[in-house]
Every structure is written in structure tokens, then in C-alpha cells.
């Protein structure tokens, strides 16, 4: 290089004077358990994101590289504005924050990136990818906390979310835009219902298929990895997003994850799409929020939860909506999950969320252990708005099913004390036992709506009356195969029209009769198997 050029460069460097820009800042005064107190930052606002300046005093080379496995920049979220100081939750590794560290205001409230690119990806509560597939290129920032849509912007729920689970689609239908709680003890199949619902959406036409967001709060990483793999194998990952705040994540991230999931869902809803968001589970979010609130020195209330624990869940679930045509007609369906202790639905958090949602699916350990899966207690499970969204064909075959099962449960209890039953009671019990078998379903195998209609129609026509109870599930599987091969056209018509016309009923009757004739060996009931 010519000497003149080198001289010019040296002169330029010598004459370089960096320009200073005033930044709003504060100093960390105390730090511990994921919460910091900050002196200064008097103009900060609630829910504002602050940036911890880690490079102070470090050599340039050290400041250039973040700690191994850590985020490049460490952020905090302002949660308390006090007279002299502010308190913030650290959104990352608290060990990286030290007393005396400078904290800079960013001037923005917490937002997460959202966009089509997130489909098929796993992100953390900050919306950062954690699946090793690289960063997002083009996303839109969505505020984590946002006011829910008002009455004028909404319309009534009218389109169903097909869960692919016979017991739910028939008796506790869920509509797009509804909030349906899935509640039960540990290991009763709550997550399975949610995952089956996500998998079931692959049966929907691509244009109207809901985007599914699964928010894992306080779950084991292994469980989330298994779910991701299950969705991938079922080809459901392409329309799903996983927001993961595992048990090892700071309480602040576990508290934020459901809001991040809602924010990502709103991105799609605002663009006229349907979204299903599963919050798995809100009990753990409540526990994380309790931890955070106690560390923030907020006054504890019942069970040491803060006073605004109801508001935490209500403002989250209120963001579920079915928007009016003027607003694009999108919807956000919320499927929150709550874990109960020993079947106690009268706990603080369960009663709160029950009162917020539009119904609940209650799962019972006793049924689960008996092998009745999904272990839904039909008696106390309810969907308050979903029936308006239920397809007419489903309504036609499922009407009275809930009542029949509830009566059966009562008679079943009575049966244990009495051997001599009159014929009507014995018939009702036999019919109930078979219906329970028909409603049993394997996990990971959602059934399309039209097939559910056909099977429930066959059950309503007493096809299984002559089948031993222990063989009902096997016969039902054979029947489903038969329907698939022999009356695909009829099923397609049910799917298309959503109605079970007289003509379609005749077609189904004909197929059922053909099945009975083709497999006479399946229909030999005897008293022992009753």
C-alpha cells in the first residue's frame, strides 16, 4: 500500500472522536433470585425492557463474546415502579448481573417476533429460536401484553375446532375462538388431548386449517422434545409453533411464555387466520408468577398467590376471540390446561380458570386407570358455547349421548349393589357399556369428523348391541376400515355438507347392514361377556 494512503488512514484514526448520545440509565443496587433493584431509570415505564450492560470494565475481546451458551445481550423486564427505585425480572441468567452494573432503558415494551417463519419452529418465551435451525430473517414484533379485542370487534363462535376425539367433538364441542379448559390430575391425558387436537388439524383443508401454538410452561425438556417429535412424525409441525419455557428456565420466562404464545397467535389472527393456542399448563405459570411476585415483595394473598393472579389468567384468556368480518374474521382458540391435586377442582387456581373459560374438559384418574381413555368425566365436563359451532351432522348423532352416558354412570354405581335388574335397566347398562367402549380412543390417532359421525350413527343404530363389550373397540376399528373402503363417497359428502340428510342416512344404513353380513362372526353376544 502506498505510504500516502497509510498516512491518511493513520491521520483519520488519530482524528477520530466518537460522538456521545445521552442514554437513559440506572444502576443495579441489589440482585438475587432473578430479580434486581435498580436505582435511576426514573422515566421507565411498566413492562419496559431494559438492557444490562455487561461489557463495563471488560476488555474489548471479552466484551465481544457472550458467555458460552448464553444470549448475546441480557435483558430485564420492569415489573415494579417504586418511589425510589424500580424492580425488574432478569430475562436470562441472573448470574450475569452484578451489583453496580449499568442498566439502559430501551424505550420499548416487551415484544416477540412473529411471522410465517415461526411455523415448524421451537422458540423460547422471548421468541428466540432454540431449535438450532438458525435465526429468523423477516418477522414482525408483537407486544406481549396487549388489550384484548372489544365486543364490537367480535362475533359469535360458529366454526368448530375438530379435536378428532369422539367424546369431545360429540359431547363437549369446541368452537373457533372459544376458551376450553382441560383440567385433571397429573397423568390423566391432558396434554394428549391437546396434542391430538393439534394433530387432528391436518384433516382440515389447508386454507382454513388453524395454526397451532403449543406453549410448554415449566415442563421437562424431554417431554417437550417428545411432543415436537410426535408432531413432526404426524406431519403436524409444519403448521405448529412451540413456545418453550422449561422447568429450568427463570420464573420470569415461565410467567411470560403464555403471553408470548398469545402474541404470536394474535399475529396470525390479525391476518384473518384461525389459531389454536394450548397453554400447558397455567398452574405452573401461576406458581412462577407467585415466585416472582414474592421476590418483588408484592403482598401475598390466598395460598401466597398475589392479589392479581385472577387478572393474570383473565387478561391472557380474554385474548382468545372470534373476530368480526370487518376485523378480518380470524380467531384465536385457547386451550388452557390446569393440573389439579387429587381431583380437587375447588382449589384456588382451578376455580379461577374454570370461571374465566367457556367450559371445561374434566379428566379423572379413576377412569384413566380403568382404561377408559380419554378419561373424560362427562358429568362435569361442559362446553358453554361450542354447541353453536357443532356441525349439524354431529348434532344429529350426538344428541342425547351425554345424557345417556350420565345416566349410565349412575346406574353403574347402583349395579354394584344389586344383582336383580329389570330389563330396561339392564339394557340401558349394556348400551352404556358399549357406548363407553365406542368413545374410547388411542392417543395420537384423531378421527376425522365424518368418520366420527358414521361410527356414532352406527352406535345409535344399536350395531354394537350384539357385540361383546370386550370386543366393541376391535369391531369399531373394523367398521371404520369398512366405512373407509365401502362408503368413501358418503363420508366425503358428510364432510362437505356437514349435514346428515335422509339420503346419507340410508347410505350409512346400507353400509352398516353390509358390514353386519360380511362379518357375522363379530356379532355373537353372550351373557358372560355382558
Amino acid at each position, binding site marked *: 500500500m502506498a505510504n500516502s494512503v497509510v498516512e491518511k488512514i493513520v491521520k483519520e484514526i488519530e482524528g477520530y472522536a*466518537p460522538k456521545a448520545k*445521552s*442514554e*437513559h*440509565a440506572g444502576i443495579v443496587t441489589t440482585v438475587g433470585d432473578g430479580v434486581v433493584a435498580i*436505582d435511576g431509570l426514573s422515566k421507565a415505564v411498566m413492562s419496559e425492557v431494559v438492557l444490562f450492560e455487561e461489557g463495563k470494565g471488560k476488555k474489548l475481546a471479552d466484551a*465481544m463474546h457472550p458467555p458460552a451458551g448464553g444470549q*448475546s445481550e441480557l435483558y430485564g423486564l420492569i415489573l415494579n415502579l417504586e418511589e425510589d427505585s424500580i424492580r425488574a425480572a432478569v430475562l436470562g441468567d441472573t448470574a450475569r448481573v452484578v451489583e453496580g452494573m449499568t442498566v439502559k432503558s430501551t424505550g420499548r415494551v416487551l415484544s416477540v417476533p412473529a411471522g410465517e417463519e415461526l411455523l415448524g419452529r421451537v422458540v423460547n418465551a422471548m421468541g428466540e429460536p432454540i431449535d438450532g435451525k438458525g435465526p429468523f430473517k423477516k418477522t414482525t414484533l408483537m407486544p406481549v401484553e396487549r388489550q384484548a379485542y372489544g365486543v364490537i370487534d367480535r362475533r359469535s363462535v360458529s366454526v368448530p375446532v375438530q379435536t378428532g376425539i369422539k367424546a369431545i367433538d360429540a359431547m363437549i364441542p369446541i368452537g373457533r375462538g372459544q376458551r376450553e379448559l382441560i383440567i385433571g390430575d397429573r397423568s390423566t391425558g391432558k396434554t394428549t388431548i391437546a396434542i391430538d387436537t393439534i394433530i387432528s388439524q391436518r384433516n382440515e383443508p389447508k386454507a382454513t386449517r388453524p395454526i397451532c401454538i403449543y406453549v410448554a410452561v415449566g415442563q421437562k425438556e424431554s417431554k417437550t422434545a417428545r411432543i415436537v417429535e410426535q408432531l413432526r412424525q404426524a406431519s403436524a409441525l409444519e403448521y405448529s409453533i412451540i413456545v418453550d419455557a422449561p422447568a429450568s428456565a427463570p420464573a420470569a420466562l415461565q410467567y411470560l411464555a403464555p403471553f408470548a404464545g398469545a402474541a404470536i397467535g394474535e399475529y396470525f389472527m390479525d391476518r384473518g387466520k384461525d389459531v389454536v393456542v394450548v397453554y400447558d399448563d397455567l398452574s405452573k405459570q401461576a406458581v412462577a408468577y407467585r415466585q416472582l411476585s414474592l421476590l418483588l415483595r408484592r403482598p401475598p394473598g390466598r395460598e401466597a398467590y398475589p392479589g392479581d393472579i385472577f387478572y393474570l389468567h383473565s387478561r391472557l384468556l380474554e385474548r382468545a376471540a372470534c373476530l368480526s368480518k370487518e376485523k378480518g374474521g380470524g380467531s384465536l382458540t385457547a386451550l388452557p390446561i390446569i393440573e389439579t391435586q387429587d381431583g380437587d377442582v375447588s382449589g384456588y387456581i382451578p376455580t379461577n380458570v374454570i370461571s374465566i373459560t367457556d367450559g371445561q374438559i374434566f379428566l379423572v384418574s379413576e377412569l384413566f386407570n380403568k382404561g377408559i381413555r380419554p378419561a373424560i368425566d362427562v358429568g362435569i365436563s361442559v362446553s358453554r358455547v361450542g354447541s353453536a359451532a357443532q356441525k349439524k351432522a354431529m348434532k344429529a348423532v350426538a344428541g342425547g349421548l351425554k345424557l345417556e352416558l350420565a345416566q349410565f354412570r349412575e346406574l353403574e354405581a347402583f349395579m354394584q349393589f344389586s344383582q336383580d335388574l329389570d330389563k330396561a335397566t339392564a339394557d340401558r347398562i349394556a348400551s352404556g357399556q358399549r357406548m363407553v367402549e365406542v368413545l374410547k380412543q388411542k392417543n395420537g390417532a384423531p378421527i376425522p369428523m365424518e368418520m366420527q359421525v358414521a361410527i356414532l350413527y352406527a352406535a345409535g343404530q344399536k350395531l354394537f348391541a350384539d357385540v361383546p363389550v370386550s370386543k366393541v373397540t376391535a369391531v369399531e376399528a373394523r367398521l371404520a376400515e369398512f366405512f373407509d373402503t365401502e362408503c368413501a363417497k358418503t363420508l366425503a359428502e358428510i364432510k362437505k355438507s356437514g349435514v346428515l340428510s335422509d339420503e346419507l342416512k340410508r347410505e350409512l344404513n346400507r353400509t352398516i347392514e353390509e358390514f353386519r353380513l360380511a362379518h357375522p362372526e363379530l356379532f355373537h353376544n353372550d351373557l358372560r361377556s355382558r
Partner: protein
Amino acid sequence: METIYAQALWQMVEKGMKPKEVVMKLRESLENRGRVILMPKIARAFARIAEREHRKRAVTLSVAHEKDALKAEREVKKVLEELGASAEDIEVHVDDSLIGGWRLEGREWLLDASYKKSLLSIYNRATQ
């Protein structure tokens, strides 16, 4: 209790009362109430308040080399004037990690005109 007395003491001094007079009045008041025993604790609480208030007002100027201090102070005063802020006493620190330039920290604000910051921002822009 002693913190409240110390805060009252601080406010009186802030309003312009002479320290000797303030202490006399405090002593009188404590004697009347039989609380003279609180005096040493009040003194310690007063020292803590004074230190905190000093920290609030303190402005720290960090420079990479001692020889840059004078030039940096001149620049800082100019910048502060432009910002409409004032700094009565500026504490000067040497922080060789800054490489060059200066960094000024107040309780509520931060002005970073160091080479380190410029280099870091170039690095971050290039790598992210």
C-alpha cells in the same frame, strides 16, 4: 425510627438551616422525649442518606489514560452544557478497557464516547 429522624435532619439541612443549629434542635427534641439514646443510630442513618444522595448527584468520568482526563473534562462540560445538565463535581476514573475516548455516568443517564463502544457496535453490526 432513627431513619425518620435522619430524613428530617437531612431535609432541614437541605432547606438551608445551619448544621449546628439543626443538631441542637434535634438533641433538644430527643431529650424532651427521652430518646437521646437514639443519637448515634441517627448519625449513622444520616451518613447513609448523605452517601446515597451524594451517589445520586455524583458524575463519574472514565477515561482510558490519565493524560486524556483534562481534554475529556473540557469536552464533557461542553456536552453537559448542550444537554442543559450541570455537574458540580466530576469524579475521574481511569479505565483502560475503554481504549480511547471517555464515558460519563450520572444517576439517570449515560454518555459513552469511548472507542470501545464504537468498536463493539461495529463488531455487532458486522456479525449479527
